[in-house]
């Protein structure tokens, strides 16, 4: 099998996996009537590429000191992270039914020190990248080769701490650190570029000293390939500005910001599953 064939095979499997995750997330949202469905669906392909192709992790050893770190800095996409971790075997998929239920481990934003595979408690934006920098510096001081990935939302780029962190990581030349910005063009209550002027986002990250690239955040094959190359030889931390669609995968949710807070009805779940090719 040639490299190209191997990659194509992988991409098909990754796409199937992403569809499965989207279906699971939509079920979770319906069952719990929780917010952030659109934000969860937009980053599924990044998570899929990371957890099924890029990351050097072993779900049976979630505290392995040599593991790659993946920090969901946009903690409001917790449903996507939970579905991913469960599907990867960090905890039983059955536990997803406890999402947002009384007494469970799966809160609407990821908890600290409770759930295997959750590297950091996030939900307040602008925290994940500084923590990730600390992880990357620790690895460098300990002579380890692990990499650190942080997934940020575009609205999260409003936070000053993100830019403090960006400048510091660049000064530290943390080339095993990678940020992916889920650039779905919406934040909670409006278009992200009408709220604060993010654009030109790639140029901003580049100006802050990062090796910054615009990518298709739904091209799971490209994401898998590019993220795997970290460290990529640039000598800099790497930022992927991933163009995405909020609510990706379901026609009546795509680019409709009502789904930042809305939960689907049973009928809508069924429709969505059909569109995703599930069942």
């Amino acid at each position, binding site marked *: 099998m040639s490299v190209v064939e191997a990659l194509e095979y992988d991409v098909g499997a990754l796409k199937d996996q992403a569809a499965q995750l989207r279906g699971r997330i939509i079920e979770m949202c319906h069952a719990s009537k929780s917010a952030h469905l659109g934000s969860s669906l937009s980053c599924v392909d990044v998570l899929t590429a990371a957890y099924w192709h890029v990351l050097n992790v072993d779900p049976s050893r979630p505290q392995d*000191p040599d593991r790659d770190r993946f920090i969901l800095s946009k903690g409001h996409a917790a449903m996507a992270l939970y579905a991913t971790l469960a599907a990867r075997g960090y905890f039983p998929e059955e536990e997803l039914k406890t999402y947002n239920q009384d007494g469970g481990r799966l809160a609407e934003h990821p908890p*600290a*020190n409770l759930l295997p595979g959750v*590297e*950091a*408690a996030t939900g*307040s934006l*602008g*925290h994940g*990248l*500084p*923590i*990730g*920098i*600390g*992880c*990357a*510096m*620790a*690895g460098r*001081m*300990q002579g380890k080769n692990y990499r650190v990935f942080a997934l940020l939302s575009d609205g999260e780029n409003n936070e*000053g*701490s993100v830019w*403090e*962190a960006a*400048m*510091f990581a660049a*000064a*530290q030349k943390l080339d095993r650190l990678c940020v992916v910005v889920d650039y779905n063009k919406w934040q909670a209550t409006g278009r992200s570029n009408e709220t604060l002027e993010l654009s030109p986002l790639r140029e901003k990250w580049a100006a802050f000293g990062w090796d910054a690239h615009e990518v298709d955040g739904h091209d799971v094959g490209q994401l898998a390939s590019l993220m795997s190359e970290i460290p990529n030889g640039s000598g800099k931390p790497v930022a992927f500005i991933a163009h995405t669609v909020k609510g990706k995968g379901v026609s009546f949710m795509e680019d409709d910001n009502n789904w930042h807070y809305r939960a689907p009805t049973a009928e809508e779940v069924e429709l969505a599953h059909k569109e995703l090719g599930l069942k």
Partner: protein
Amino acid sequence: MRNAFADEITKLGQSDPRVVVLSGDIGNKLFDKFKDAQDDRFYNCGVAEQNMTGVAAGLAMNGFRPFTYTITPFVTTRCLEQIRTDAAYHQVPATVVSVGAGLAYAGLGPTHHACEDISFLRSIPNMNVICPGDAWEVRAALRAILQQDNPTYLRMGKKNEPKIHDDVPSNFVIGKALVISGGKDVTLLSTGNMLPEAIEAAEQLAQQGVSAEVVSFHTVKPLDADYLTNAFNSFQKIVTIEEHSLIGGFGSAVAEWAVDNGADARKMIRVGTPDAFFKKSGEQEYAREQLGLTGHQIAGRVKAALDRA
């Protein structure tokens, strides 16, 4: 206290490879010896305290013992959410070290005053809050901090403050008050850099026939419940002394403890800063005098309260 911190952390860093110092672009030359000894474990994080604190949490999650350091407001309130969420919620051993607490930097103006930090920090779960009484206690606190695993706030005064101890107090334990000198009528519980004022107050009270115990109550959280239990049973007055607001600080902590534990809170006299910014120019000594925080003023309040009783 500041120079003792730099010297002690340098020594500890040499023997403990977990020690990492993160500075918020302050302490010019202060850490030169640390850098000489272990350059790869000193980071000037710039004027970016939120990031510095998050980085500290990330380091602490991975086996290191980071110490973030800058002037009090900037290393506490500026990045309070990172302390709360990144360090305390994850319960990692990151230590926030502040310099110039209270009115130590009175002359620099209200932006540099810090009379609210104990209140904020002690309300955060998992946090230790330690306010050493002199440079020797700073050293003892640093050693103790490295022997435990919780996030900690270490609140320091400035450089060249009076030394109370002659050496590192060997009986320094986090959460255990240090009796500096015994007494039988009242006890003066001082936290942080007010310790010299408490000693001065005790001396003045002695001249007026009042026997005052002096205590360095260096740990505001967790409180030394054993000492407080005995104190409320033994003394006529329990005097809390701090260069910090009367809202939420050490005195508040003791008052809460007294109410919750059935101790007679009416015995308390709380010395601290008022619910107001101190807006005048002037150095610490002047500010203390204006706010009633000096030893002779404390002695006067205590004597008057005893006379009324």
